[in-house]
């Protein structure tokens, strides 16, 4: 594994960064929040990103993608994370898209993937339920056999990018209970399916999320993504990829908020000198710098490891998420503290990063969760 960008990757990173700087400053996110926009993102900009080929980067060419990998996708997502661009890359592209690519039948793929990769459709995946915390297999939603298909009943919480999505992939129990790994099946449910109710969840980070209620939603066998009763490993593989994508977004966010903090330290004067000349702040800034560097190495390694299908890829995914969770919160907390009073105001952007850092930390498992997972994967 080489932890250095190739020329092609440098080009992707630079293009994404330029595009985001020109088309998606933080003020765009702020305007969406202020307007209470129901989607919370711009469908037009999403289509533009599809035309640029960003959504298809990590998908096979025969599926309509560019045939590259997570190592390239994370560069685009990092750029988006820098300016808190709210387009549905984590819930829509990474969860929904990878679930389709890894598990769906050719018929489902051809019906849905082109739209997802062109940015015309969003397919979400409901990985969380009320009370499930970070346990992916703690699923109470039941799929009861009915005729040739199933009837789904249950509730899903904070379905990322799920409000207004064309379809949602819903993990449900066809057998078993509790945290059982077996008996889980993934179903693709169209937004207009009778018995499905979707409500926008208003979150601290203002990002799109939906609360879903399923009341006897009918799903035919053709809507199963993956294999009947064996959805746990598909779900974990998909969430691992989405975790790398989210980690990359976090990396962009922490880098940006830290740059803004450094710039403030160099210009804000108190006692007649720039506050960045104080050693107490210099050493704390240097600590943040180091944590970001370690987070970056972890994200690069995780992306390459998943791309290569290495045996310890899952450990590196946990490493990336744990490091990014700690580093993003540190960078954001320190930003608020070093900006001082204005850092607490809604007018300044640093609060947006703090909110997103917390939301991202508590998505797909926090650092403590991933330490437990690392220990389990390490055989202890």
């Amino acid at each position, binding site marked *: 594994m*080489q*932890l*250095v960008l190739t020329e092609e990757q440098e080009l992707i990173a630079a293009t994404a960064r330029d595009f985001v700087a020109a088309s998606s400053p933080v003020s765009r996110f702020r305007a969406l929040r202020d307007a209470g926009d129901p989607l919370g993102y711009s469908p037009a900009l999403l289509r533009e990103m599809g035309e640029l080929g960003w959504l298809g980067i990590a998908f096979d060419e025969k599926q309509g993608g560019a045939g590259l990998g997570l190592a390239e996708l994370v560069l685009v997502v990092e750029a988006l994370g820098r300016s808190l661009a709210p387009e549905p890359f984590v819930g829509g592209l990474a969860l929904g898209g990878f679930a389709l690519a890894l598990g769906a039948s050719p018929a489902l793929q051809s019906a849905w993937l082109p739209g997802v990769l062109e940015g015309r459709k969003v397919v979400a995946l409901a990985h969380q339920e009320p009370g499930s915390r970070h346990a992916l297999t703690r699923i109470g939603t039941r799929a009861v056999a009915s005729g040739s298909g199933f009837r789904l009943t249950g509730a899903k919480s904070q379905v990322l990018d799920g409000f207004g999505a064309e379809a949602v992939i819903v993990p449900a129990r066809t057998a078993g209970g509790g945290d059982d790994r077996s008996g889980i099946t993934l179903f693709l449910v169209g937004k207009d399916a009778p018995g499905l109710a979707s409500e926008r969840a208003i979150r601290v980070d203002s990002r799109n999320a939906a609360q879903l209620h399923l009341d006897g939603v009918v799903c035919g066998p053709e809507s199963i993504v993956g294999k009947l009763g064996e959805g746990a490993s598909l779900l974990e593989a998909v969430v691992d990829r989405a975790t790398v994508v989210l980690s990359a977004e976090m990396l962009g966010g922490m880098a940006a908020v830290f740059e803004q903090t*450094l710039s403030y*330290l*160099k210009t804000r004067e108190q006692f007649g*000198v*720039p506050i*960045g*000349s104080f*050693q107490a*702040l*210099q*050493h704390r*800034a*240097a*600590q943040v*710098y*180091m944590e970001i*560097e*370690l*987070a*970056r*190495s*972890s994200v*690069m*390694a995780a992306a390459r490891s998943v791309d290569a299908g290495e045996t310890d890829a899952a450990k590196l995914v*946990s*490493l990336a998420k*744990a*490091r990014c969770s700690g580093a993003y919160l540190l960078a954001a907390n320190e930003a608020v503290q070093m900006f001082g009073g204005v850092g607490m105001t809604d007018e300044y952007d640093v609060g947006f990063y703090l909110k997103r850092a917390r939301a991202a930390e508590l998505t797909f498992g926090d650092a*403590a969760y*991933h*330490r*437990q997972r*690392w*220990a*389990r994967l*390490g*055989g*202890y």
Partner: protein
Amino acid sequence: MADLETFRRETKSWLEANAPASLVGQIGNELEGTWGGRKATWPNPDAKRWLDVMAARGFTAPTWPKAYGGGGLEPAEAKVLAQLLRELRLPPPLIGFGLTMIGPTLLRFGSEEQKTLHLPRICRGEIRWCQGYSEPGAGSDLASLQTKALRDGDHFVLNGTKVWTSYADQADWIFALVRTNPTAKKQEGITFLLVDMDTPGVSVSPILLISGKSPFCETHFQDVRVPVANVVHQIDAGWTVAKALLGHERTMIADAFGGAGPRPDKKGGRSYLAELAASKLGEEQGRIADPIFRDEVAAFEMESRAFALTVQRTKDAARAGHQPGSESSMFKIYGTELNQRRYELLVRLLGPDALGWEGPGFDEADLEITREWLRSRGNTIEGGTSEVQLNILAKHVLGLPS
């Protein structure tokens, strides 16, 4: 790439043919590695044979030019060689400050005569070097050093004391910072000088540390005459050389403390730390029975891995032609703090078994951990304190104002 594969194949079979079997599985760390030098002893004669055969091929200093005794390898080839040594579980044939500190410094700043004289002797393990930087009155404020060097014809006459000169009692030569101009601004009156420890007037006394043992010494200079030809770079320009060498030192320290990556675990098996924790605390359903220690072991392993990946990233970037920055300061801070955390965790895992000072009644390995825990407290002081490194990061990497 094909060339690299050929290199890998040929080197592997050469190593398999030439490495003494008794060295497989040996660790080449500070305590057990081969340092060489005139005073070297060879409890295992195979270690000497291993040094000689590797030195003859230029593999003690793989990337140095062949003309000076090195291997003339490209960085990518040197990485392959290092990987092969790990794979075959072979210790490095030679370690020491000649290879890691003064060698790279001479390659950059030394005169042709200095390179021709000193580098081959380093490569062959004939001369062991030590470092004369700190003084009783010059620690973090290194540039305030006072060891006097007065010009007398084509010699300098040295008077003063250097402190924390690691392994000075076993070294043959010392590279020292001395004051040649007492009136100039403090950084501008310093000269970088090479001194043969056999010169009359050089004496060494050991320093005992809280760990009960120590590689450290005080080195005294009393009217020591050193040829002006032993000045590296220029007179009064030693600070430039000193800073460059400190970068090498920080990288060396970082590598020693895990930057080179975790020791390869048994395939699919537990790490050393996890195994120790399981044996001391017991297991429940395949897990370390104490959930808090289990969490701490995982936290430490993850931090180590992230650090090793960051060191690797910097090396990969350097190989790809990117200019290295001041990252060595980050590695110095992080590597040493990790080593401290490692020993903090180890002694707490041992519990009361960690309280031995010497036998009987205590396990040899546990005693070693206790001594190393105490020794590790010095890691964030030696080679530039963590606080000095944070200053360097803040000013030179982050651009924060003075």
